[in-house]
């Protein structure tokens, strides 16, 4: 800091930074990207290890015997489901009661802001059924949750069967120290949201639900089971939750430890861990796995029923059974034993899971990148913004004095507040319009155009987004003669700092989202001035805009999942992703849509404004 106190050295430092600004920025950007890509390289990552003592050394024996009976229960459940054409509430209540649980139901109803065409639902009415296994000699202060969704069609019957089988087996054991709640939720995430809101008696999304009658205290951990076949080849662990929240890494470690112990293939992002890190294919496998996680996390949506638990500080994960064409199969008894082992270890917990990491990326199930390792990648990108801001600040504080013919030095007048404020306000108003209008104006759109409500919402959003591009012209019409050299510099300084703060905050909450946004917005923010070639820059800017980033992300995601799509399919997918994003926000409180509409898009518009500065 003595460096900054000394004016001479400070001047030298600043001089160097302004002189070498562009090269340093280039280096930073490339270093950031390289660092990020290096995260998947195995020697740079850490091996996962169990941090929680209560779950580590204590050995438990898994004895769950009744896999076949559980599957039979699952078939019975399927038959009743088919008969009632939905959740067989009465049957579930009776079955759970016969297994010695305290059974309660919760009704809920929700009218979606617009019809969800993917899942074909608009007015949702349903019932959650849950049974509480009361732990002997425990005072109802702690609980664990095991949930299975009641999905339409032939899905997840086996999951419900195993859930009921485990309930029966767990009930006859004396060692439980925490209540165990067995939950069958209807309408997947909507039911889960209703149940969690009912349990915690909050209402963040305006859903109607009947209050819960029985509770088990504070929930310590939860697992959600999805299983649609009698035998599985592997189990997939899903961690990404709402707003990019992740459960404690120990939960993943626990799953992995038991898979190893029992001998079940386990994956994350559907990718098996590989040992050949030193080959190119091994490395690219790890990169793909990590990129899938990054994209899923950046999407801010819950990727399983567990995703909503994380808001309540409940560590949760989904376990999905995968049945592929591999020869080695695992039966239901083994899956039951795996869950039994996990629950017994969770039961041993003395504290909430807190010992291990909450912020991490996983290039494979056995490796992880902690926050300390991945943050520098983002830091390098964010540094560019700060350097540009410094450069602009220096330029503004020492204005180039122009000498008139008389030899009188004229200091150009500093731009008025209005010239900065107007673009700021107008672009944010556009953001507000983008946030509110699509849902509000759906009826109007449906009346005038031959589209469905969902299409109307998505197309309105895209229309408003595109209309925003025309703003600079209109802005300048409002402000006659304000377009000075100083003006755009001040505006750019504000915009760059705004973007730096915005991305910094986003990356702290959801690293993946922050990083992806930084990857596209930072170069744009760095090079845009009114003096660059307009057309080319405009094209680049549009390509790097948040909307198109999403489009590329959709294609990239499909590519990584090894289900490539054509342009046409991709476009349809893109539209559905937008509608899902808006729905996620309305139904579960996902923050991506408001963040993009209210902050990122206006910020991008500011730069668009600078490009067309007159």
């Amino acid at each position: 800091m003595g460096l900054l106190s000394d004016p001479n050295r400070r001047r030298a430092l600043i001089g160097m930074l302004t002189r070498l600004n562009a090269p340093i920025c280039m280096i930073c950007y490339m270093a950031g990207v390289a660092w990020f890509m290096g995260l998947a390289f195995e020697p740079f990552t850490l091996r996962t290890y169990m941090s929680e003592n209560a779950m580590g050394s204590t050995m438990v024996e898994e004895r769950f015997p009744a896999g076949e009976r559980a599957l039979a229960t699952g078939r019975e459940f399927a038959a009743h489901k088919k008969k009632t054409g939905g959740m067989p509430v009465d049957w579930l209540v009776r079955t759970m009661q016969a297994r010695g649980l305290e059974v309660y139901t919760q009704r809920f109803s929700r009218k979606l802001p617009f019809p969800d065409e993917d899942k074909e639902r608009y007015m949702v009415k349903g019932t959650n059924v849950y049974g509480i296994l009361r732990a002997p000699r425990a005072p109802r202060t702690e609980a664990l949750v095991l949930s299975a969704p009641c999905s339409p069609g032939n899905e997840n019957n086996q999951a419900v069967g195993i859930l009921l089988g485990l309930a029966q087996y767990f009930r006859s054991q004396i060692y439980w120290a925490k209540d165990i709640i067995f939950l069958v939720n209807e309408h997947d995430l909507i039911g889960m949201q209703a149940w969690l809101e009912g349990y915690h008696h909050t209402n963040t999304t305006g859903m109607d639900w009947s209050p819960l009658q029985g509770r088990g205290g504070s929930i310590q951990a939860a697992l959600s089971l999805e299983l649609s076949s009698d035998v599985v080849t592997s189990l997939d662990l899903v961690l990404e939750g709402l707003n990019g929240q992740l459960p404690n890494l120990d939960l993943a470690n626990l799953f992995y430890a038991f898979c190893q112990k029992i001998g079940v293939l386990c994956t994350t992002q559907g990718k098996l861990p590989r040992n050949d890190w030193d080959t190119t294919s091994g490395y690219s496998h790890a990169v793909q796995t990590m990129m899938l996680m990054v994209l899923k996390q950046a999407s801010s949506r819950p990727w399983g029923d567990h995703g909503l638990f994380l808001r309540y500080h409940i560590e949760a994960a989904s376990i999905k059974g995968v049945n592929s064409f591999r020869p080695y199969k695992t039966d239901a008894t083994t899956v039951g034993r795996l869950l039994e082992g996990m629950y017994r270890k969770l039961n041993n917990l003395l504290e909430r899971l807190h010992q291990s990491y909450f912020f991490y990326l996983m290039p494979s199930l056995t490796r992880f990148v902690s926050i300390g390792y991945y943050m520098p990648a983002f830091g390098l990108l964010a540094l560019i913004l700060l350097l540009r801001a410094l450069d602009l600040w220096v330029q503004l504080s020492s204005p180039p004095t122009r000498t008139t013919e008389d030899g009188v030095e004229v200091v150009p007048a500093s731009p008025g507040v209005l010239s900065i404020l107007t673009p700021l306000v107008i672009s944010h108003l556009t953001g507000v319009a983008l946030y509110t209008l699509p849902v509000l104006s759906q009826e109007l759109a449906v009346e005038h155009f031959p589209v469905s409500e969902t299409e109307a919402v998505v197309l309105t959003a895209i229309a408003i987004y595109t209309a925003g591009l025309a703003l600079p012209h209109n802005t300048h019409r409002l402000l006659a003669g304000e377009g000075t050299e100083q003006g755009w510099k001040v505006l750019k300084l504000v915009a760059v700092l705004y973007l730096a703060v915005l991305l910094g905050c986003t990356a702290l909450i959801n690293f993946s989202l922050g990083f992806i946004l930084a990857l596209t917005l930072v170069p744009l923010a760095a090079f845009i001035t009114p003096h660059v070639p307009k057309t080319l820059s405009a094209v680049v800017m549009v390509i790097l805009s948040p909307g198109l980033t999403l489009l590329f992300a959709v294609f990239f995601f499909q590519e990584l999942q090894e289900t490539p799509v054509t342009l046409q399919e991709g476009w349809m997918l893109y539209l559905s992703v937008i509608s899902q994003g808006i729905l996620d926000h309305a139904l579960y409180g996902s923050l991506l849509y408001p963040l993009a509409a209210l902050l990122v898009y206006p910020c991008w518009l500011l730069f668009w404004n600078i490009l067309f500065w007159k």
Partner: protein
Amino acid sequence: MAARRCLGLWFFLITLCVVSTGADVLHTTPVTGTESSAAGTETVVARELPEAPSDPGEHTAAEPTREGEQNDRTRGGEQTLGQPTREEEQEQEKTREGEQTPAQPTREEEEEEEEQEQTRGEEEFTREEEEEELTREEEELTTEEEELTREEEEQTREEEELTTEEEELTTEEEELTREEEEQTREEEEEQQTTAQQEEQTKRWEATELEEEHVHDAAVPPLAGDPPAADPPSPPPSKDDFQEELVIRPLHSGDIYASFQFRTVWDADFMGDQKVSHYRLFPKSLGQVITKFSVRELHISFTQGYWRTMQWGQPYLPSPPGAELWVWFQDTVTDVDGTWKELTNVLSGIFCASLNFIDSTNTVQPSASFKPLGIGNVTDHSFLRYATLPREIVCTENLTPWKKLLPCGSKAGLSVLLKSEKLFHSTFHSQAVHVRPVCQDPQCRTTSMELRQTLNVVFDLHTSGQGKREWSLFKMFSRTLTEACPLASSSKVYVDVTDNPQGEQFELSPATPLLTQAVVLGDRRTYSVYDLTQQASFGSSRSLNMLLRWKNSHNNVVPPVMLRPLLHSERYVAGYGLQAGEIHTLIYNHHPYRAFPVLLLSAVPWYLRLYIHTLTVSSKGKDNRPSYIHYQPSKDRERPHLLEMLLQLPPNSVTEVTVEFERALLKWTEYTPDPNHGFYVGSSVISALVPSVVAMDTNSTLDRPLFSSFFPCKEEASYFMRVYTEPLLVNLPTPDFSMPYNVICLTCTVVAVGYGSLYNLLTRTFQVDEPSPGLAKRIANVIRRFRGVPLL
């Protein structure tokens, strides 16, 4: 037989000779109640009289006189020092005796046995004992009379106090006091109802089983017995011990076993005279009561939560963890100090963490927890109440609890209390209640009553292997072979209300004795096994009751949720670590009657209650509590105390909500496991619940019409206490994994970052000519001297 007796007597004499080297040992010699020991004491008295003639008070009165107190106190130390060996000896002796006389006759039995044919030696012994008792009683009568007058004086004084207190009340407070009075009345009524329950039990038994229960008259009267039931002239024994076990099959298929051991002692702990002779009453507790001037003491240790919705109401409710409430006598000046000491002593006695009770979790309820014994105390400054919801109850608490029993765990019902089975259950609760009760119907003198209760629920699925079939052996892995020889009554009750004709389950061995009692507002029928009767044990000489359900094809009946008239639920709402909301739901399932409840909740200071957000609503409407007592917390000193009197509308849910903020503790104040969360003790709901019997419209069926128009008073409502769940609340917790690194980093960042930023912002930097160095200055001086331009 005679030879055996001689051997026993001889052994006893030897032990006494060894012991009686000190002159005053007599007073600590516990009278065990067996004939041989009684004979032994007599001989010692004969021997001792000439040895200690200088201290007459010791022999005439059970309590030492004022002059003797000094001596007595000095002796106290010796006694306690000598105690263990003596106890060992007694135990040895007891076991010897047990070996020698397999069926030890109790005093009660003796009376019966007198009528029957007995060996001559035993007769002699009993007669001797009786004679001795008579003389002792004569002595006592005089002292008792003195005590009586003193008691009367006290009573009048109390009445005066009451009247003055009533006068002091201003008109504003009238409503409050009325409610308080109501509450006290409630409490009294509860007391009455419990007494009445007992009385009821007695009456039914007496009426139904007159032949078998003639000797019941010999049992000294219980607390609150009406004059009608008063025996004509019972030989008042100094102390009395009763034991009973109630077994209730629950709807859910589980089974509930409730033990009660009751010791009543006609000793005056509160008087001036010191009590030093202990027989059946545990000395450890007696000394505590005397030392700390305790009027009433209630302590319970519970592991698990009582599931009202599945099991109905418990006989004695208790909150999870430990609960302690004590009424001190009004002679205590420093109540807080005494309370602190008392908790520490009790912590030692019960091997529990009661020493964690301090001012931060102690409250003084203003309306709840009125004394259950006699004495109408209204000044709640002598009451202390505390709970430790985190206390874990296990064998180390059970063992000292069992040691308080006269028979330990060696005979009687307490042989069933084996920890490996008791803790293989769904619910376990043990409690000790000490309170003063009336000695006689006129209530001229008081006795101390010690009730030790143990409640346990065995689970159908874990303990019963899913079969609805229960036996004593299956529950406790023991059977009953004898009553406690010291007990005046020893009974096992089995609730057969739902099984009047034996259509539900089969009870074997069958017993002809039946009794009815109104328990918790419901008339219940019980099968009674009297363990003092040899016939109860049958030919196998052991009692192993077996309850077997008839419908074997449908072993597991799906548990149907009960709808108890009053039950409650409590939870924390909201998410995040900043704020939250405590919801308390109180259900009134009565179809047409509203009743008042008193809600008490003590919340630790680190949840900062926003009392302005307190809302009480039932059926969607605001329900104004008629009485609110709120004591705000002080950080690190005392908890919040909130007491409310609420009227619950019929068939409704009343919801009490209050918001709170979670405090950030100092880093040393966190527990070693801060991420586990912090406990908030159970709320207590005290209520007068309308009785099921009174509610029953079909009561005309089994009652005469003329008796059923107005609901009869004692059955109209009953007192009940319901405890809610404790809460586990997470507080904002720093990362304790690397405190040193965190502290270092934070300090560095603050020091360096803040310091230099402050420098940059506040200082102005000017380029200044550096002052020349010493060498330069010297050079300049020389230069000036030489006339050369300066450097």
